[in-house]
């Protein structure tokens, strides 16, 4: 008994001290942000904080007790965003290999389901590309959206006769017209004008959208609303599911997986697909360069995503809920977002609460879940330190 207790403590401590780095980094960031008002930018300050706090990690171990992995059997269900699904499928086997007492089921259902399942308690962790709406937080005051990684959304196409390695230039306004049925052919002057030097074959455009309630739809329609406020914004707006204009041939697909497969078999298609499906779209579907607010056309490269994320780092509120679409960074890719885990503050038992906290803390930790090796597989970027501190703060509320 004593032996077992001791070895458990050792286990705790090993994990805890590593997690401490994350959490203390977060706390230090807040401190840095408050105290060093003279520093040029919070990003710089937080970078500094991350590097300096690792050493002093041991100081606030007591506040981390709650993040230690449970030793009793924990059974968790994660459901929601199909964009996060590949990420969880990397994380969960690694985590459960190390902590065999955890049973975690992942499911790709859509952000809408992620939010609703966390709200009604059918799943402990909901994954969503969209933050919670006012009505959701009013209906479920216990619900939190905890940022966990940075993701981006690609705009893909399949044009017969155009190499998939040609990255067409598109603006949000043009894409909006395509989805409204106002531009129906790929060689429409509005598209060719953006792409001088590229011969675009004549082919009917088939817009694909998601059939399920989807955070991807939210991100995509936010871009269309921001770039075409009088058109898309006035008539349709942004939401996890919207009333798609009636375009002949328009197809609804279930999940990002359905979007990729659907676009592959539908000549002339255009689709919005999460970056985590990059390895499935590469070489098969074309990937568009999207015009950002400064007028530059960008691909969702790690650098462009990181640049865009950095421009929002300081404005992330304590609730975590913020749109990162169409931001100010001149070299940033305009469709990026925080991926959220939707968790209820009140869990059915302390064991479950501890299980969720420790798993998510593990995911956030750049030594465990958020390693560049893991994230690069799905094209994600780690949270900026300021966002980590927001996440850690939210995590601490789970009980």
């Amino acid at each position, binding site marked *: 008994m004593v032996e077992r207790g001791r070895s458990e403590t050792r286990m705790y401590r090993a994990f805890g001290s590593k997690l401490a780095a994350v959490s203390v980094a977060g706390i230090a960031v807040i401190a840095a942000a408050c105290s060093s008002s003279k520093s040029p930018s919070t990003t710089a300050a937080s970078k500094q904080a991350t590097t300096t706090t690792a050493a002093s990690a041991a100081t606030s171990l007591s506040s981390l007790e709650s993040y230690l992995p449970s030793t009793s059997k924990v059974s968790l269900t994660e459901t929601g965003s199909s964009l996060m699904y590949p990420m969880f499928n990397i994380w969960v086997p690694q985590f459960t290999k190390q902590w065999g007492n955890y049973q975690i089921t992942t499911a790709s259902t859509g952000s809408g389901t992620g939010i609703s399942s966390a709200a009604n308690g059918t799943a402990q962790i909901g994954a969503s590309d969209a933050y919670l709406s006012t009505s959701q937080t009013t209906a479920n005051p216990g619900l939190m959206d905890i940022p966990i990684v940075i993701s981006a959304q690609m705009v893909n196409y399949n044009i017969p006769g155009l190499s998939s390695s040609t990255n067409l230039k598109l603006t949000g306004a043009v894409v909006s017209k395509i989805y409204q049925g106002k531009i129906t052919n790929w060689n429409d002057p509005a598209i060719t004008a953006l792409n001088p030097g590229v011969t675009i074959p004549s082919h009917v455009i088939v817009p694909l959208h998601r059939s399920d309630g989807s955070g991807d739809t939210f991100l995509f329609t936010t871009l269309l609303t921001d770039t075409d406020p009088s058109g898309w914004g006035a008539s349709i707006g942004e939401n996890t599911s919207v009333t798609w204009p009636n375009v002949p041939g328009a197809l609804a697909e279930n*999940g990002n997986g359905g979007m990729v497969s659907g676009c592959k078999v539908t000549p002339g298609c255009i689709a919005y697909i999460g970056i985590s499906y990059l390895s499935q779209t590469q070489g098969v579907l074309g990937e568009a360069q999207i015009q950002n607010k400064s007028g530059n056309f960008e691909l969702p490269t790690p650098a462009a995503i990181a640049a865009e994320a950095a421009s929002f780092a300081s404005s992330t509120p304590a609730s975590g809920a913020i749109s990162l679409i169409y931001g100010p960074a001149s070299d940033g890719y305009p469709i990026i977002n925080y991926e959220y885990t939707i968790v209820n503050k009140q869990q059915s038992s302390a064991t479950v609460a501890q299980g969720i906290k420790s798993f998510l803390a593990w995911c956030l930790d750049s030594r465990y879940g958020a390693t560049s090796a893991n994230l690069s597989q799905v094209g994600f970027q780690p949270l900026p330190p300021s966002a980590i501190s927001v996440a850690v703060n939210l995590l601490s509320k789970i009980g």
Partner: protein
Amino acid sequence: MTLVAATPHEKGVNRARTAGDTIMWLVCGLALAALVLPIIWIIGQVIARAIPHFRWSFLTQPTIGNGGGLSQAVLGTLVLMAMVGVIAGVTGVGAGIYLAEYARRRSAILLRGATEVLAGVPSIIVGYVGFTALAIGLKWKFSIWAAAIALTAIVIPYIAKTTELALRGVPGSFREGAEALGMRDILILRRISLRAASSGIITGLIMALAISVGETAPLLYTAFWSVHNPTFGLHNSPVGYLTYPIWTFYNYPVKSATYLATESAFFLVILVGALIIASRLVSRRLSRYMPLGQG
């Protein structure tokens, strides 16, 4: 055929009439082919897609994310089938016995009507109600029992109907003979009626199980999905089952995921095929209790 020599005009008419026969049998033959062809096509496709990627580890390994095997789903499907077999079997056969043997005319009309209406309720409605009432309303969350109850609601009408029809098919002379010999009602039921009807009842029961293992819509919202072996808690006990990977992974752009879908379809076809064969064997074995032509 004609006794009197036919005039040329009559010959023409006769030719037209026999041609009508040929055309009709041709059309009917084509119809039969159109009925059989999709079966071969569907099952052929399922097998053709599954065999090249088949590994035994699909049966021994659980699902890991969108890869791995299907062992927990196979087990979940079998467990759900067993639970439905017991719950729906007892209830459905009981209901069928009552309808055939005891129900008065008016109550029989009511009960039979309700059974038929329930059979017509689309399975997704059962899923909706199972989710809102059991998973959310009673706070069971995703639960193996909610799943079993939803499936039971779907197959009870089928079992009740087949049981009732089988019992009604028992010749009245069987009962009358037994009654004349002074057998008690319960014994007549057990030893005569049920035995004579057993072929029909068990066949119906097995077919009901075949239907239940193929359900998806009611399970999505009650059993949900799990990568772990089934547990039997009332609360929070999601189950994996074989129709889920087909619906979820068939168009997932990762090979390991589409394999899960195609292998699930393969296992389901084997399971359903085995059930149909079992029902045929049972009906052949047990139909000896019935007079000729009734099995």
